[in-house]
């Protein structure tokens, strides 16, 4: 197989996974067999009625996982879109204006990159009431950093290009140059960052929820996983197969989906990487 083909295969596979998940998330009420908050008999084994059985308080696990897609993807999307917008804006400002603004932004970036991110997120989340909005807010605080750094270094090379200088010479305002000449050139990088950040948030959110810091009502995959892990008979019965494996596999599939799409995009948008990574299959 040639490299191009591998890329296409991985990229389409990733896109396929993500497309399925988005459809499941949007049409959760139509797809899910039951209301995830309705209670039935507790700790049922899988049967034709409850394909993945029921949990410790009698919710249908399949419906819970299907609705969990909504929560997990919603958090990932909200965090990524906001964090990437903030990161891109700050990166553009830092790279284009230079001076004090650049110094301040880049020092903050350095500090954020040195402090262990997830530990501080856990500490902040512990002080807040458990809700998805608080989770989203905490992830945004730390999500913009890498994007700002990458966008800034790209802008640094772009702003000295001849076409930018000519635009400036012809009297283009700073805002016009940023919008028309610089932003379109950093968009490919930003798209890749968006995908990477979304995959990262999926794992981080699942981790935080696994530790019991997730929203107990709007249950993400991580929250379902958390309650399954607390089940006392987890190691003496095969309850883990239908309670723990499905949300776990959903998390893995989503992360792989984002990774594949991100990888395929990066290879295509940034040909320089090919020689460095050289993933010959």
């Amino acid at each position, binding site marked *: 197989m040639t490299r191009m083909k591998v890329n296409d295969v991985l990229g389409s596979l990733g896109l396929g996974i993500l497309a399925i998940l988005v459809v499941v998330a949007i049409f959760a009420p139509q797809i899910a067999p039951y209301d995830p908050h309705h209670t039935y008999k507790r700790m049922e084994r899988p049967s034709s009625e409850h394909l993945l059985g029921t949990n410790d308080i009698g919710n249908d696990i399949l419906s819970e996982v299907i609705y969990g897609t909504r929560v997990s993807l919603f958090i990932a999307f909200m965090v990524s879109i906001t964090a990437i917008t903030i990161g891109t804006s700050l990166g553009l400002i830092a790279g284009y204006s230079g001076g004090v603004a650049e110094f301040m932004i880049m020092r903050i970036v350095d500090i954020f990159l*040195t402090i262990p991110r997830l530990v501080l997120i856990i*500490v902040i989340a512990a002080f807040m009431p458990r809700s998805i909005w608080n989770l989203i807010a905490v992830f945004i605080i730390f999500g913009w950093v890498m994007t700002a750094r990458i966008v800034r270094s790209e802008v640094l090379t772009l702003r000295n290009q001849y076409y930018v200088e000519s635009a400036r010479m012809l009297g283009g305002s700073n805002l016009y140059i940023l919008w028309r000449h610089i932003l379109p050139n950093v968009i490919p990088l930003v798209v890749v960052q968006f995908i990477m950040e979304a995959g990262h948030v999926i794992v981080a959110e*699942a981790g935080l929820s696994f530790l019991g*810091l997730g929203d107990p009502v709007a249950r993400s995959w991580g929250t379902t996983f958390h309650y399954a*892990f607390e089940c006392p008979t987890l*190691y003496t019965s095969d309850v883990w197969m239908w309670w723990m494996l499905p949300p776990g596999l959903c998390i893995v599939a989503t992360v792989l989906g984002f990774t594949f799409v991100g990888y395929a995009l990066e290879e295509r948008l940034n040909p320089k990487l090919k020689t460095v990574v*050289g993933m010959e299959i």
Partner: protein
Amino acid sequence: MNLINKLAYYLVIILIILSINFFLPRAMPGDQLAYLIGENPDMPTRMTDEEREVLLAHYGLDKPLSEQYLDYLVGISRGDLGWSIYRSAPVLEVILVRLKWTMLLTGTSTVIYLLLGIFLGAESAWARGNKKDTWSLISILTVSSLPVFFLGILLKIFFGAELDIFPLDGAKTTCASYANPLEGVLDILHHLVLPAATLVIAHIGGTYLLMRNSMLSVLGADYILSARAKGLSERYILNRHAIKNALLPIVTMAALMVGFMITGTIFVEKVFTYPGIGLLLYDSVMCRDYPLLQGLFLIIAISVVIANFIADMTYIWLDPRVREE
């Protein structure tokens, strides 16, 4: 000059971490006193105004903010991280008791994943394009994409519960009496296998990929060509010329990985109920033991900063080009 700059930079970061730790609970919507006494917001503690006054005075919360901040910094410099009401002990003491287990776990895993990642990465790059390279690349990347807690539980269920060859929980058998010290060591190692394996598998991908890339660029260098022209054996070139020079980026990464390692440890210790500071952090979140939580954050964050500093120094020491600048 470089050294002094770096040192100043890291001192500033430590001061910022200390400040975050101080201002975080004060910036939160809740009552600062409620955090200190570990109050459950659903069940507010009932106390009279006089009792409240006494408590506020005890914690110095009646003083102006600037004075509280100074007191806090002075306290930290004396090793006073506060008092955990929940455990009725000084925070620093509670942490120090647990720290040795985390150091054992992270230390062992770090050594293994670095060595293994370097070895596999070098081998993979050496055999680039071959089936061996392709398959190790695919399998390592796939396994590393598993979230660390999921990986841990899978290992625990498979090797701990189904096959029953490793213990499920803890760092040693509870209430065990050992005939000789060796038996105790073996017991601890037996308990260490699964948690350490989880951390190694979760972290090996980064080292492997970096080493592979670094080797690929080194293998294209002119001095490898001249070594080959001299008629040196391939093994000799790999071990003496290529690996040594490809190792440099690993040093920088190893420091960055300290942060990831600690994050991973929190999950692994929770999954295996391993009695280190990661489990302590989880417990302190669950019982709203905020003084302990903040003490842990401080210790972890400062350790990571120190690791970064050490990596920077090692880098300067290893690479003469950086030293010259």
